[in-house]
């Protein structure tokens, strides 16, 4: 499997209602650090937004990144962006590029800091 199998996949809740598509994948470092090489990364959560445009600029995840006009425009486009944890994924159909979330999944704000 590839990262790009996840990116752009449709995300629906347990009832089949769409949340949008995966616009980014948050990775978390695991295991010991300081061995001279980076430890593994695991998929921690998915950034889900109704649209893709402009998400590569990162403004929906940062409220302090300028310039203001651009930030406002991208944040408006992505105002419904949410973060869902990978363990809230009930089913991932790689072929159909479709991810179904569990009934009790939680939606978090996408801010990084």
């Amino acid at each position, binding site marked *: 499997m590839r990262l790009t199998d996840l990116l752009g996949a449709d995300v629906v809740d347990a009832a089949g209602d769409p949340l949008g598509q995966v616009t980014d994948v948050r990775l978390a470092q695991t295991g010991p650090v300081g061995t001279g090489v980076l430890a593994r990364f695991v998929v921690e959560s998915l950034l889900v937004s109704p649209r893709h445009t402009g998400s*590569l600029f990162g403004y929906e995840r940062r409220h302090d990144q*300028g*310039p203001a006009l651009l930030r406002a425009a991208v944040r408006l486009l992505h105002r419904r962006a949410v973060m869902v944890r990978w363990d809230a994924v009930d089913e991932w159909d790689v072929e159909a590029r479709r991810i179904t979330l569990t009934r009790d999944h939680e939606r978090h704000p996408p801010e990084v800091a």
Partner: protein
Amino acid sequence: MKRVLSVALGVLTAIGGFVDVGDLVTNALVGARFGVSLLWVVVVGVLGIVVFAEMSGRVAAMTGRATFDLVRERLGPRAGLLNLAGSMAVTGLTFVAEIGGVALALELVSSVNYLLLVPFTGLAVWLVLWRVRFSILENVFGLLGLALLVFAVAVWRLGPDWSSLVDQATHPSVPGSEGVPTYWYYAVALFGAAMTPYEVFFFSSGGVEEHWTRKDLGTSRLNVLVGFPLGGVLSFAIAISTALVLLPAGIEVDTLGQVGLPVSEAVGRVGIAIALLGFFAATFGAACETGLSVGYSVSQYFGWQWGKYVRPREAALFHTVLLLSTIAGVAVLLTTVDPIKVTEYSVVFSAVALPLTYFPILVVANDPDYMGEKVNGRLANGLGQVYLVLVTLAAVAAIPLMLLTKAGQ
């Protein structure tokens, strides 16, 4: 002392390297047709290139990454590839114009038809790209380019009525003999000539070539903040000199030879010899810069090793691109297209391509993950946003104006 010298050298080469064939032809042409009524565009354009070159230089110094490297990261591979194709079309066209400009300058010296000089010029450009160290290339042509200061001397010796010039320049109006769309067409062309995208590719990649780090931020800024505006003064001088000599005589510029006539008028034979040296240095230096910019951008998109800081065999794909683009540039000129016409189109298409380059730079220069505390301040962002609007307007207006005015006729 050594530090002062190296800073001075940087500023001088930034001045001498500022003007290329696009600035030369467009400013001369506009001065001869519109007098000083379009000089305000040069001011706007020079401020714009200062704003964005400063950003791209800061990004290069802080991250070690040049502009196109980051274009793909921020736009993704698809939009990045489109951007690459558009930017390469424009930079390639400029490359053709510069090689043609060198050949035309040599024709004025040697009286040999420029078409015979084109293959020789192409070979010379390629040899410099292949063999000559980056700093030598930049310093030699930058310093020789200062010969264009002779246009400023010419203006001074022509002794214009300064108060009336200032008045016309600050209260611009469309001359009676020209249509409003034509005026705006040339406004867009001048803007494109001043803000040519390759200057930013080259400036940021040059920073990486010279291994800039955070310590070089001051030097890089000084080059941009002092060197570029003073380089813009050269553009000014060219436009004013043709406005003073060619406009009253009813001469429209369509050859490089005509661009030199105000200098011979005011300074005589020594003047024209210096101007020819300046033409040669400006076009040859810019031919190297645009050629390198093509190689830089393609390599940076795909992540290949690029640059003149390694041996050619260590950057084989980069050097293959340089070789092929030089051959292609020579081939285009050998079809006998008029290099001056190519130049006129290249500056207008530069205007079309401006947002492709400047938008991603503005985003990256604001990203704290790359830039740490050196992200854009209020001034850079304020100006950056204003210019983003301006370059978008120019890009949108360029083609309709070109069709409407039959390319400025």
